[in-house]
């Protein structure tokens, strides 16, 4: 679950210089995830709670016979939780690879756009990066004068599931 693998995988599948990102909104900020990782987007539905898990693990759902965990990204990032509304969606993604491959859903405020991001337009994240733990930020990109936060989804989800020791940044 290293950054290197995910980056090289994306390089092969996209053109040399640009990658496609699905973006979503979370507390007014726009985040991007590698679109090749996104399996589907579905509405919020009731989950079955799982005991002995951190609060950002909302529970599991039945996704066509598979038991899939649902994470709340706001809580994961230590942002203020809000009531789920009509735009609230679950982005179902495939993370990890090989034996570690998992299907996981994350709850976000709303989906936004699909962007082609030129590799040349991305910058490494600065040390201080607002409310998100910088470990999970792969890069920052500028599109139409907006800033996109590109997430390292393998690291974010892998970390959230297997190793809860890395704390989210305290609520802003």
């Amino acid at each position, binding site marked *: 679950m290293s950054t290197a693998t995910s980056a090289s995988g994306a390089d092969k599948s996209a053109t040399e210089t640009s990658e496609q990102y699905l973006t979503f909104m979370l507390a007014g900020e726009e985040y991007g995830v590698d679109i090749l990782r996104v399996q589907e987007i579905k509405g919020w539905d*009731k*989950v*079955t*709670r*799982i*005991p*002995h*898990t*951190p*609060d950002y693990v909302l*529970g*599991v*759902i*039945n996704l*066509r*016979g*598979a*038991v*899939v*965990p649902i994470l709340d990204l706001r809580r994961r990032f230590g942002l203020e939780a809000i009531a789920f509304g009509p735009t609230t969606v679950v982005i179902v993604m495939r993370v990890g690879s090989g034996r570690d491959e*998992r*299907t*996981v859903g994350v709850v976000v405020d709303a989906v936004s756009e699909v962007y082609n991001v030129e590799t040349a337009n991305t910058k490494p994240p600065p040390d201080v990066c607002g409310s998100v733990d910088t470990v999970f930020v792969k890069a920052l990109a500028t599109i139409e004068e907006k800033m996109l936060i590109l997430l390292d989804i393998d690291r974010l989800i892998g970390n959230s*599931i*297997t190793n809860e020791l890395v704390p989210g940044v305290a609520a802003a």
Partner: protein
Amino acid sequence: MTLDLEMAEIAKVFFQESREGLDVMESGLLTLGTTADAESINTIFRAAHSIKGGSATFGFAEVAGFTHGVETLLDEMRNGVRAVTAEAIQTLLQSCDCLREMIAATEAELPLDQGRIASLNSDIAHILGERPQVATAPAKAPAASAEPTAAAPAAGASGWRIVFEPAADLLRLRNEPTRMFTELARLGAVVVRADASRVPLLDALDPEACYLSWDIEISGQIPRAQIDEVFDWVDSQWRAEPIPAGNSAAAVPAQLDPPPEARPVSVERSPAVAAPAAQKASPDSGSIRVATEKLDNIINLVGELLITQSMLCGFADGIDPNELDRLRQGLSQLARNTRELQESVMQIRMLPISFAFNRFPRIVHDLSRKLNKRVELKLTGENTELDKTVLEKISDPLVHLVRNALDHGLETPERRSAAGKHETGTIELGAFHEGGNIIIEVRDDGAGLNKAKILQKARERGLVAPDQELTDEQIDNLIFMPGFSTADQVSDVSGRGVGMDVVRRNINDLGGHVQISSKEGHGSTIRIRLPLTLAILDGQLVRVGKEIYIFSLLAIVETIQVSKDRVNTLVGRSEVFRLRDEYLPIVKLCDQFGIEPDSRRAEDGLLVVIESDGKRAGVLVDDLLAQQQVVIKSLESNFKPVAGVAGATILGDGTVALIIDVPDLIRSMGKLGGGEVTAHAA
């Protein structure tokens, strides 16, 4: 040894088949001890022969060479030249082990244990007696070992008359008759006459079929084994008989060049014994090999089908019943079909328990020799089927139990006769179905458990309070406690006190249950109850607040409603309740799992009494719902293992429900003392 890819594929099959062959040899050898009939020796011989043939083909000369020695010995037994002695059987059994290792080493391309091979070779040679080189010499250079090995030719035969009537598919199977004749010609002067009478008219002729048969005369003192070698691949399509001396017809050399001269070769045995004709290479076991992964996929699919069906049923219940009668009919049929389909698919994973039982004759044989005990092993219900995974996981615990029965249970022959019992003890290993479970019993007619000694040891170790009274059954089951052993001496067989508790834990982890009952002087019976499969579970649905959980029915002892006066608190908070003469802790799922229940008071809800590892507890739930079979889904595949949860399943309404891990719940109860857990989520 490097093989190209295709060869490696075929070699893999050879390794697999060799292992199966060795199993056949081993079980055959073990029965030889009691009944030395020709058929069982033949079976063993055939297995050895196939291994030899296969290994020679793949160029594993050492395996082929070693097997040849074994085969020679077996051949002599088969022909009644050699008596079937206990010593010979032991050597052959060791040879099986050695071969198994050789095959494993060859497959892994590791060096062979030459020392062991040499020592067994000399053992075999020793049994074969007079000519040790016969056992090994042809092996070094199979097929064409033309060098004379002994000087004196046996009198009686001057050659062989061979009738070779190949099956029509001879050529299609890539056998080349002329090559075989050339091979024969190397052994001695050959006269070949072809019989073309069966060749049909041209319009009926299949150009790939073989219609010819041959009549071959070969002169010279040639051991039968060398001729066998030539016809190795066309078993049962030929027969040979010796030509008496002075009657040789080796006159005109036929199509083939005659060899320089007949060579004197030692005759291994009387050539008058002809090979048994028409024997099938191996009996068809009627089974196929299927990758477990593929099966698992089908099982998942069928599980989903089942879910769809129950979803549809729920949908139909809400609509006007008059109009939908036919839909209902169709649905009930769908339900039946799905269940049948699921059952038949599950069957694919089912294997007879004989896969686990088969190792025992050998284990008992070896162990009884070592311990100087006389044992008869009886196996019953070997065809009882259970899931492959359960089967694999139950094998080791069973071995442990049988070893224990032999070491601790059965007495020495002297003690047995002193006690008025037959000198030979009996161990019975049986399996049968009961309800949706499989029961495996290990029974011995030995000394039984010494209850006084067990109780004394248990008190010494503080496992039982000094003044505590126990029933006989409770005392017997103390042997499953961790760190418990009554053996006076620790042997390398058993007695270290690790074991029975591990056995019980393994069985509990499979969702099963183990119990022992014993009568002093008359033996003990260990009874294991296991679910037939790990993919489906007979579940009891319970409700706590708004959540639904599932318990395995196997783990539930009973469900009761308790009155307030039977509930007491311990040290302030932990609650216990009285069930007949026992006090059991109350486990509150609402606290364990951090959920909001209808009520926290034990008397308002129901207590599900569960048992694992010999410990019991009452789990407080708000309500009991249906009992149903559920398809077990792993939480780990997309998430991770969760304490107290064995897995998940999907209910008829499409929601996910968690399956309670009873052994884990009971274990964590032990750690936290009394079932009070404060760890809430987050």
